[in-house]
């Protein structure tokens, strides 16, 4: 099931909230949350729910074992088993076809591809479970003894299928006992409605144009149109994923959880390194804590560590070489930035922002075209095309003018420009505070209207 669907908004959500708030005990609330989360997952993956349960059960017992044998060799061994099982599940269910394909290509063998369909959200819940056992082993968190509460942590539907990758430390204080306040629920509703708007109005509209420029017109694109198309895809992927994260964070708040932010105006970044700190921050935090720092961080072999992290980040996104290439591209950019650091420090901000944006938009091409031949053709088109600019470009710029204005307004980091004490910020906050009941209803109705013809509009990150 997806958040941006009529069934979720008008049936699943009201019923789950009703069940949740009618039951007074925390145990009961968690049980209701678990049941609805399993139903939420089963809606899209009736078979792979078994895999989710298997992974959760294994990690629950492994973490208990690690905690009970803290500091011993047995604990380390249990951690190793847990890592192997989690990574093994990921390798089998996400990367098996990729490995068979490449083995066949490399060795000339003819192994049959298992052809497993990617279980929904496996990359997210595997990393989430992995972070839990690692943190238990490090003694950073206390092990969760209640199986019910652990299951709620892993399967909670707000973050289950597309993140953010919630760390146990973020919610350990609230998983056993939490209080939901009107203020928190209200801010959750505001956030959910904002996310719905970003997904349904901005990302879904951009997707219409993306298909037109990057697929239908692919063979006769002019260079400006190719840039226009890939910029639109950059808009789509950002609003799609950040919209999802907003909805997840909002839903979390309604149920009394505080998830950390996953995005912070990434397109306002002034370097690739800065972008990394603003985009899919929960994944960044995961690789920082479990890969980058253990490898030596910026103390030793920093450039190597950066490159490895980016390769893995790319590979996490999908079982395809283009994602590895995407990671390598960003890795190289980061290394170059580190090498040119002293020059970049004195470079005007506008230049830094421009080059970052160009590199990010360019990198989306590697993300979009899984087929290398298509990618090659497209990259060539970005710089040279025999086709003149079609009238479509002008008409779409005009025909979607208000849409583009909206996109720009949403991409600007207003909270960074005006600090919280600034009069403009205060006034805007006040207007939003009093206007929110009306704004939310409008956003909800707008989302409903635009969803009516869109039975299934999955989030892009579902396929990762």
């Amino acid at each position, binding site marked *: *099931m997806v958040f941006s*669907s*009529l*069934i979720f*908004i*008008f*049936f699943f*959500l*009201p019923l789950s909230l009703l069940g949740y708030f009618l039951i007074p005990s925390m145990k009961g609330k968690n049980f209701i949350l678990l049941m609805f989360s399993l139903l939420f997952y*089963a*809606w*899209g*993956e*009736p*078979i792979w729910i078994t895999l989710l349960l298997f992974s959760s059960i294994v990690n629950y017992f492994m973490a208990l074992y690690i905690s009970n044998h803290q500091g011993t060799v047995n604990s380390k061994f249990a951690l190793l088993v847990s890592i192997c099982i989690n990574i093994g599940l990921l390798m089998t269910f996400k990367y098996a076809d990729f490995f068979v394909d490449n083995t066949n290509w490399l060795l000339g063998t003819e192994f049959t591809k298992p052809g497993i369909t990617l279980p929904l959200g496996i990359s997210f819940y595997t990393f989430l479970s992995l972070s839990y056992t690692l943190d238990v082993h490090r003694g950073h968190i206390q092990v969760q003894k209640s199986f019910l509460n652990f299951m709620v942590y892993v399967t909670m539907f707000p973050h289950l299928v597309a993140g953010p990758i919630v760390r146990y430390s973020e919610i350990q204080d609230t998983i056993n006992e939490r209080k939901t306040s*009107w*203020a928190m*629920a*209200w801010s959750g*509703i505001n956030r959910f409605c904002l996310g719905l708007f970003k997904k349904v109005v901005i990302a879904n*509209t951009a997707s*219409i144009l993306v*298909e*037109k420029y990057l*697929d*239908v*017109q692919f063979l006769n694109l002019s260079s400006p149109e190719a840039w226009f198309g890939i910029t639109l895809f950059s808009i789509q992927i950002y609003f799609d994923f950040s919209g999802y994260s907003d909805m997840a964070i909002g839903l979390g708040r309604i149920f009394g959880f505080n998830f950390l932010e996953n995005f912070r105006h990434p397109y306002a970044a002034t370097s690739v390194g800065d972008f990394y700190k603003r985009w899919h921050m929960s994944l960044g935090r995961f690789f920082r804590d479990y890969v980058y720092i253990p490898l030596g961080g910026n103390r030793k072999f920093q450039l190597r560590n950066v490159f490895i992290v980016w390769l893995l980040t790319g590979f996490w996104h999908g079982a395809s070489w283009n994602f590895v290439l995407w990671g390598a591209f960003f890795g190289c950019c980061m290394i170059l930035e580190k090498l040119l650091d002293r020059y970049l420090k004195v470079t005007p901000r506008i230049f830094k922002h421009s080059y970052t944006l160009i590199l990010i938009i360019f990198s989306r091409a590697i993300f979009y075209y899984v087929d290398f031949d298509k990618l090659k053709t497209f990259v060539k088109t970005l710089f040279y095309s025999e086709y003149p600019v*079609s*009238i*479509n470009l002008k*008409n*779409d*710029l*005009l*025909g*979607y*003018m*208000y*849409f*583009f204005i909206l996109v720009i307004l949403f991409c600007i980091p207003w909270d960074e420009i005006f600090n919280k004490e600034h009069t403009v910020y205060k006034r805007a906050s006040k207007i939003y*505070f*009093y206007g*929110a*009941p009306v704004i*939310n*209803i409008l956003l*909800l*109705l*707008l989302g*409903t*209207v*635009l*969803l*009516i*013809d*869109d*039975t*299934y509009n999955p989030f892009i990150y579902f396929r990762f």
Partner: protein
Amino acid sequence: MFQKIGILIQALVLVGISTTFFLSEKKQISESEKRTLAQWPALNDSTYFSGAYFKGISEYINDQFPERDWLLELSNKLRFRMGVHLEDEIRMVVVDGQMEQTNEAAPNDSLEASTNDFNAAYSGGMLIVNGAAYTMNSGSVNVSPIFAKMVNEYATTLGPSVTVYSCIAPLSSAFIPSKQYAYLNTKNEQTLHAIRDNLQPGVKFADVLAEMNAYRKEKLFFGTDHHWTAYGAYHAYVAFCKSAGINPANLSDMDHEIRGPFLGSLYDLTRDESVKEHPDTLELFKPRVTTELVYYGPSGFDKPVKCSLFSMAKGYPSFISGDHPLEKITTSVKNGRKACVVKNSMGNAFCVYLVNHYEEIYVVDFRYSKHNLVRLIKDNQVNDLIFGMGMYGAMSKGTIQMMRQLGLNKSSSSSSTSSPAKTASKTTNKSKSTAKSKKGKK
């Protein structure tokens, strides 16, 4: 307190809409979308494990949502108002071409092929120019020889007593009023010439595109529908007459009637606001020839239904009362000549002009008919076999195979004879009801 009120309002709206859903009447068919709406799915092992059950529920809720038609219209308006639209703008929209066929007369297995026939030409990019929709497809020079081969096979089988004609209409992409897309006219030409170049000697080629090109400033295709207008069909008829060496009738010698306005299949497909703002009118040119028309089921000739050359429908289904597996037109022209037209829906508007030249015309819709074409032609001593259709019938191997199959069909059990003439006396008059039932896309 303020937040409490906000939450309560929000909850009331959610619950209010959900309750309205349960109380609202559930529908079977959407008139505006011309498709069957999703019903509550059946639960069994197969639907559960495949995920079809849950998907079905989601579709049911979307399809049966209260005031769906109004919300759809609003949704299109909102998307259209996301910017400024110029009067003379050219816009490309992307469609999936997945339209549902609503021909009740068609046998079930034909529906899919018929829909594919349409989808082949109307999926991918479409251009909206001044509120008129145009396909961007232009056929395939690789498929044209396969079509020509099939036509040749009929010519060989039927022998010299029957003249075979290829009278294929271009797609609307040939007439996009923009220099930028002029190349699509050339591509249409290449596709049609690839048919011409592969026809065997004796098979005649009507150069419909060349004839239509001379009149490209006229409204040759509807803007909201994928069919051609009476003008477009007339020029095809003139092209046919030229290839057959006969004098075409003048439009001025026919009765002129205007109907409408109506929105056709391309509006249903694109749901584009500017297309909606430019509805079509239907112009009919009625030859001053007395005609009788009956249609038959997919096979056999035992239940002829009487209808008329121009039904009362508002849009394209007016011509020969829409699509039927087999229709027989008997005219007051007494020259002993008979024609058989193998067609898709584009042939309907073309056929009406032929009544000026034939005593009997058999109209076979290759998508629905299970009659044996060769036997039909031989038994009824047909002189001319005309493949008169829109290019989308000749651009997919599947539809070409359906035409080939017409010659291989076994005669149905009910047809002890292949001559509809012998059973035509037992007709039922259904012309009005037929017109109504064929309102959907053909």
